């Protein structure tokens, strides 16, 4: 029996009020939320936290969302990222999708839509983790078999 742990979301946006409001709503809806106010802070805090999904604003001073996304995917390939764009930069969003983002939302975003995307992202991450677990188990199994056979082969 698997106990459902809350989805852990990191919200990354330089608009503090926006992050605060979104965080309070997501917490209310049962999510665990970690805020970050710029790209560097996002990357720093990812290390320490067990994040499932990152909601990432594309346009930020300093490291912009696309650079952060690239870095996230390099360091944590199975972490899911939902891009937020306040901008008509559909082009950028497409680039983001190619870099491995899970989805994107236009600001101001509809909350129910965000919830749905968050759950889907978490599901994909879990499926991903499940496959990795299975692959690891098989690997272990093969190794243990081979391990079992080793003395036999020596004969």
């Amino acid at each position, binding site marked *: 029996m698997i106990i459902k742990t809350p989805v852990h979301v990191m919200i990354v946006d330089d*608009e503090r009020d926006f992050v605060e409001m979104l965080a309070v709503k997501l917490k209310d809806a049962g999510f665990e939320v970690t805020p970050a106010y710029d790209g560097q802070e996002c990357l720093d805090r990812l290390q320490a936290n067990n994040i499932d999904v990152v909601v990432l604003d594309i346009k930020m001073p300093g490291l912009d969302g696309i650079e952060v996304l690239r870095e996230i995917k390099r360091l944590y390939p199975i972490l899911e990222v939902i891009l937020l764009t306040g901008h008509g930069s559909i082009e950028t969003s497409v680039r983001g999708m190619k870099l491995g983002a899970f989805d994107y939302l236009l600001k101001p975003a509809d909350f129910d839509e965000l919830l749905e995307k968050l759950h889907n992202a978490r599901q994909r991450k879990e499926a991903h983790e499940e496959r990795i677990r299975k692959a690891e188990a098989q690997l272990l199994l093969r190794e243990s078999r081979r391990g079992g056979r080793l003395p036999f082969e020596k004969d």
Partner: protein
Amino acid sequence: MQNTIIRSDRKREPMPERPRLLFVDDNEAWLQSIQRFCAGRGYPSLAAPGPAEGLDLLAREEVDVAVVDMKMPGGSGLELLRRIKECSADMEVILLTGHANMTDAVEGMKAGAFDYLSKPVEPGYLLEKIRQAYDRKRMEAENLRQAEFRREMERQLSRCERLASLGTMVAGVAHEINNPLSIINESADWLKRLLAKDALRDIPMRPEFDRVLEKIETGVRRIRTITHDLLCSLGNDKRVIQEVGIDRLLSEALSAVGQHVASRNARIEVTGADTSGSIWTDPGRLRQVLVNLLTNALDAIESGGRVRVSAKRSGNGIVVEIFDDGAGIPKELLDRIFEPFFTTKTPGRGTGLGLYLSLRIVEELGGVIEVESTIGRGSTFRIRLPASPAGNGSGDLAPERKNHPLNQGDNR
């Protein structure tokens, strides 16, 4: 933006080769002889025995040059000259006098006479003067026309510049607005969610909270529509270029405005010599343009009014016309209708972006939008599109290339 042609209904009639003449003199015999003389040389004319009859004729007939006697029993020629100049300043008037006197001559010239001749005047000489007067009138008309043309060009140019810089500014503003708007959106939504909780169900003035939050949400939605429309129009959108039937485009656009048609009780006529063809274009965006223009047409007409849609082939491309029999667009507004946020509709009914975006889309698709409008009779918006967007000047794809969806998304 240079492609937009805006026309209002100020057509100038070309001036006739020969002037239309009027003689005003109390001397019946002289009138007859001069009329006969002129007619013999191909100059038909009108004649009046006095100033009152002369004005009567002028009210009914178009006249280019009038020859007026200074002294008539019915009144003075000088007075008639002044009356003529009051109502049609561009008519040339030659004064004739039996006894030339310096004061009259000076007064006459001051009042705008072309010349002041002493009787008896030799008919050939008079006719020569008439020709000169007419030449001057035509030259002035030509100068006026050229000045108007120059003014028109300057206006178009400044309109283009204005639109271009407005576009850049508007995009920046829209983007800046989106961020604080998101905060309002999230905050209002959070309040709403709080109010939905059991603990807050029975707070005092509960309906007031709900009502006000509803208003905030409506406002946010309105702003969001505007900023998204603007930002999506900036050419960042992915384009799909495909072959599409003109018939289908029209019928889809018409069905999209079906409710609007019904609510306006409008009569829609669809005419088209040849709508069976197809063109390469971006169907989604072109449909958007058609819907915008149809919506404007339906807003322009009175209830029960008429909208006529026609499509026909023109060379390789197509021309779609949308006519409405509404009030027409005043000349001073015609210049501004393509500006972002310019609207005459009530707040909430129109954002003032429809024509602005339509123009941008049509130009991206290689076409032009033309407007003709007559006050009291209605407006025609005409879209001219090439057979394919590449066929018109972007040049990087051969127009005869048959099997492309010309994907501009990858071409940038």
